[in-house]
């Protein structure tokens, strides 16, 4: 940007810096700090970043819609120099440490810092009595830093840095109670599963730079334009699919979703922040960020949509039978993420991001409320041992209720709008996908209200020693709950009338008049904004996006609302009215229930297919190392060396030393003769000197005599 940026936009790089600083302080000096100090530092730093993010957001919106992009490059990070692209042209690889703020990342940082701040406040109450307080907050701030780097990066590589950072922090935080084996295992699982996805993502990055010659988002569009790639160019498709592999890893989509349920071992605020609100949405963000590529790859888009839809219904079905309150929320998270990917897949990027935001609100709220419930029941997580809590902890109950309604998609709460957007787009794209989404919505409503009823209504099944000290959580936990509740209510309204899409349009926009995927690749980046006719095209595009609310939209809306209420009603019927039915149903369709209850044995399958194979491979490699490498290589070399040394020793002893000894023997013989001169008396030596002197003088006399005569 040549024009001087306003203050906040010029200082976006400070936003990740605050959490990083406090994280450093915590991890190096935290042990010596008092908890209050930790609170001030960490929460304060996150609040500061929130302030800066908000200011940046305002100053961004102040700019004209077409130019809402602020790029701040701090320094050249990896100036790797020139290299050959696939098409043989020379390109100069340059990854700079730069920050890019456009509507997309603006939304993201707002969500991250806002929700993050609330969850920090919540944590000060929730973790108050835990050990390793400073460690927890240090990790949390480190995560904030990484996440902000992720969403603010201006190139793929820097984004990957944040990507790995959040992965590491999630590993550390899942294993926060590292003394519990399940916790540390879960951490490892999450880490390894993420590795798989990250590998794909990294390959994608390589391929991008090899194909397009740049990894800057701002230049991807122009590069695509310059490259004149045909629609569905296989190389582009490959890139898109590789990126999506990464996305599945990070965002827990089939087939890499298995780590998220186990990740619930971590502290509840962590589940709320990382595994519901922010990190798991990184994949969505990434796909949206690179939508220019996806729009050139219809096949990849199809894959994304299908995977998303399947994940959604699949996870929802598993959520129905879970008894662990957090597990239920985990599966619902997975299915909601599936929703988002469905949206991306059908090209409704804005809708995806919209759902991401609202989901961050109500899912974070759900987790926090669940945490509050667990807090109240002093660590009880099994819903079978809950019930009838609505009277005892009212505030938590109401917030939970609001969140449930929101996720269930009851108007006019947040979930309704975003989900409706997605379903609308899906319907427009293919009815099958819409149907899956629709059923999923129903199941969502069902299991969420099941959770609500089992927890708060019916008769109490709480253990007695737990019973009599059930207590409402402290304000530090309740206030964030309420704020999030408010947001879950009103969060969706900003999307009414496509305002959200308008806002995101500069980043993502699709020509709607084209049918399905048959649209010319439109490069949603500044790349075209700088050319005049493209700007005009975008302007008319922006009017075009205002939906003319035709009848089908209303019908769809009604359908989703209807199935939401249907799900709630079914849950009410099964778990409040006829509480004996669920067991009967489970018994009646026994095998299927087991299948679902055991999560379709996917974990076992993976164990059998990959994990054990990996272990076998390790064992085989170990055996190879022991026998072949050590045996043949090392020991063989050792044997050879010893043999050679034996030979050389013989040579040394008999030939080399032999000659030396011969010489010394010779010298000894000489010495034996001459030692008789060696009397050891100094005066003898002096006498010899005198004799020599006399001899010399005599010689000179002899000479003189001859000279004379």
């Amino acid at each position, binding site marked *: 940007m040549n024009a001087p940026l306003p203050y906040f936009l010029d200082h976006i790089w400070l936003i990740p810096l605050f959490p990083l600083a406090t994280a450093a302080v915590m991890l190096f000096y935290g042990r010596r700090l008092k908890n209050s100090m930790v609170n001030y530092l960490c929460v304060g730093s996150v609040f500061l970043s929130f302030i800066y993010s908000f200011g940046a957001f305002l100053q961004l919106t102040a700019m004209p819609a077409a130019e809402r992009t602020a790029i701040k490059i701090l320094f050249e990070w990896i100036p790797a120099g020139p290299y050959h692209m696939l098409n043989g042209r020379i390109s100069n690889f340059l990854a700079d440490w730069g920050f890019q703020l456009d509507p997309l990342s603006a939304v993201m940082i707002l969500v991250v810092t806002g929700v993050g701040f609330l969850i920090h406040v919540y944590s000060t109450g929730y973790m108050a009595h835990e050990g390793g307080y400073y460690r927890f907050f240090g990790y949390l701030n480190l995560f904030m830093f990484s996440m902000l780097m992720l969403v603010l990066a201006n190139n793929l590589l820097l984004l990957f840095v944040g990507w790995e950072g959040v992965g590491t922090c999630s590993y550390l935080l899942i294993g926060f109670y590292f003394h519990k084996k399940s916790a540390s295992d879960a951490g490892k699982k999450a880490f390894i599963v993420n590795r798989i996805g990250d590998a794909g993502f990294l390959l994608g990055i390589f391929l991008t730079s090899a194909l397009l010659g740049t990894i800057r988002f701002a230049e991807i569009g122009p590069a695509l334009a310059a490259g004149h790639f045909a629609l569905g160019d296989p190389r582009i498709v490959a890139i898109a699919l590789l990126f999506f592999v990464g996305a599945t890893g990070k965002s827990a989509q089939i087939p890499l979703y298995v780590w998220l349920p186990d990740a619930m071992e971590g502290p509840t605020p962590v589940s709320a922040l990382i595994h519901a609100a922010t990190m798991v949405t990184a994949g969505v963000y990434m796909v949206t960020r690179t939508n220019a590529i996806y729009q050139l790859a219809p096949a990849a888009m199809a894959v994304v949509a299908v995977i998303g839809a399947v994940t959604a219904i699949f996870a929802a079905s598993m959520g129905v039978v879970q008894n662990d309150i957090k597990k239920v929320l985990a599966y619902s998270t997975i299915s909601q993420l599936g929703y988002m990917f469905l949206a991306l897949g059908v090209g409704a990027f804005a809708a995806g991001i919209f759902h991401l935001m609202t989901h961050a609100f109500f899912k974070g709220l759900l987790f926090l409320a669940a945490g509050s419930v667990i807090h109240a029941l002093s660590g009880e997580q099994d819903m079978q041992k809950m019930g009838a809590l609505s009277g005892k902890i009212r505030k938590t109950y109401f917030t939970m209720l609001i969140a449930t309604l929101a996720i269930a998609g009851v108007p006019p709460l947040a979930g309704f709008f975003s989900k409706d957007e997605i379903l609308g787009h899906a319907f427009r794209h293919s009815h099958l996908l819409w149907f899956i989404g629709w059923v999923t919505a129903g199941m969502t409503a069902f299991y969420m209200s099941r959770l609500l009823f089992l927890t708060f209504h019916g008769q109490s099944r709480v253990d007695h020693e737990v019973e009599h000290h059930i207590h409402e959580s402290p304000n530090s936990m309740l206030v964030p709950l309420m704020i999030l509740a408010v947001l879950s209510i009103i969060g969706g309204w900003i999307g009414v009338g496509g305002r959200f899409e308008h806002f995101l349009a500069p980043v993502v926009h699709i020509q709607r008049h084209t049918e399905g995927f048959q649209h010319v690749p439109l490069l949603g980046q500044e790349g075209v904004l700088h050319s005049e006719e493209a700007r005009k095209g975008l302007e008319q595009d922006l009017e075009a996006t205002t939906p003319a609310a035709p009848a089908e939209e209303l019908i769809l809306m009604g359908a989703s609302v209807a199935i939401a209420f249907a799900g709630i009603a079914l849950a009410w019927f099964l778990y409040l009215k006829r509480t004996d039915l669920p067991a009967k149903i489970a018994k009646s369709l026994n095998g299927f229930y087991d299948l679902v209850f055991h999560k379709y044995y996917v974990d076992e399958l993976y164990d059998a297919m990959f994990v054990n194979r990996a272990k076998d491979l390790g064992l085989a490699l170990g055996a190879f190392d022991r026998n072949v490498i050590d045996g043949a290589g090392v020991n063989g070399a050792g044997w050879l060396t010893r043999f050679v040394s034996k030979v050389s020793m013989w040579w040394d002893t008999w030939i080399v030393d032999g000659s030396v000894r011969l010489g010394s023997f010779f010298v000894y013989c000489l010495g034996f003769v001459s030692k008789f001169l060696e009397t050891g*008396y100094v*005066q003898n030596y002096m*006498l010899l000197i005198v004799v020599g002197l*006399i001899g010399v*003088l005599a010689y000179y006399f002899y000479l003189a005599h001859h000279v*004379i005569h």
Partner: protein
Amino acid sequence: MFSQAVFYFFAALAVTSAILMVTRRNIIHGAVFLITTLLATAGIFLQLDAEFLFVVQIILYVGGIMVLFVFVIMLVNLDVSMRLVQFNHQRFVAGALALVLGAQVFLALKVGPGVMPHPAQQIMSPKNTEAVGDALFTHYMLPFEIASILLLVAMIGAVVMAKRRV
């Protein structure tokens, strides 16, 4: 005339006391006769107009080195060694050879043709000390310094040698 008398007196003193020094059984007496020899030599230096060297000879040799000798002689009590035979088993042949050597040199000095030139007698400058100092500190600066280093080393060496517990 006078200076000749001086020379002969000192020369005779030097030679006789030197002979005594070599032959005395008592080391202290030997040391005393060596002192006498050195003093006589100093006298000869004086007769050779080398006042400074005369003084140096007395201060350094007689007043310094010989004091050290006497000192050590007193430290090592020698009434034991006084009763032993003073000459070693090679005394006769050694003495004879030494005399032969002396005779050879004498011969070389006497009959050797042109062994020593006879330049005219120079007049020494009356300021002998200044002259020596001048030569010592200008032309012989480096040897002078080297000599000082030598003395330092000798001092350290002597201390280390003579210490009770090395």
